[in-house]
């Protein structure tokens, strides 16, 4: 289902970059064991939420970094 975008562009870019870095740390063997897997999973969540533009935690707490745009009717 289509969710609303609740992340600002800067928020999404930061999530994608940090997510890729954490995926690398977690799944490329930089950090081994459960900690590495945990970092990788958190990175995957950040990465995906950045790509989608919607954060479930934001929605839960009714927070958003995005700015609503005017709707035009003309």
């Amino acid at each position, binding site marked *: 289902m289509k969710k609303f*975008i609740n992340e600002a*562009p800067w928020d999404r870019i930061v999530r994608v970059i940090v997510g*890729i870095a954490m995926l690398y740390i977690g799944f490329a063997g930089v950090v081994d064991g459960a900690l590495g897997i945990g970092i990788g999973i958190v990175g995957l969540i950040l990465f995906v939420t950045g*790509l989608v*533009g919607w954060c479930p935690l934001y929605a839960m707490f009714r927070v958003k970094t*995005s700015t*609503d745009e005017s*709707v035009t009717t003309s």
Partner: protein
Amino acid sequence: MSQTDRLPITLAPTVVEFRTPRCPACAAMEPHLRDVADQHAASVDFIQVDASSDPQTAADLGVRGTPTLVGFRDGVEVFRSVGRLSSSELDDVFTTIAEGTAPPRIGMRDVVIRGVGGLGVAAVGAVAGPVWPLVAIGAVVTAWGGFTWLRIR
């Protein structure tokens, strides 16, 4: 005949829900939708249309599934959502229609973020090993960016 001639839509902010009696998602959303509609009754008109008994109206508005919410301002569609929404999302919809603002829509920005993000993961995966799961994730995300581009263009 315009798309909305069959509906009692005025220039006031209006939300129209297309539903069917046998739609589980519609039934699950109904109590929340009623509550939110009541809360915004002073500023937003709310209309429910049974798409199974009035298929022509649904077809006129291009409704392909239920529940579909369509928001109008000044008689013009400004918002559409397909599928079940939570109570807070419904509140956002009605606030959006009442205030005349809306969350950003999927656009070229999403294509760039998904495309570059996917290529980034694939590149990191290829350089570091290669780590095939990362390469696969990157390929899927890049393809997703491509589909997004096809959808919006």
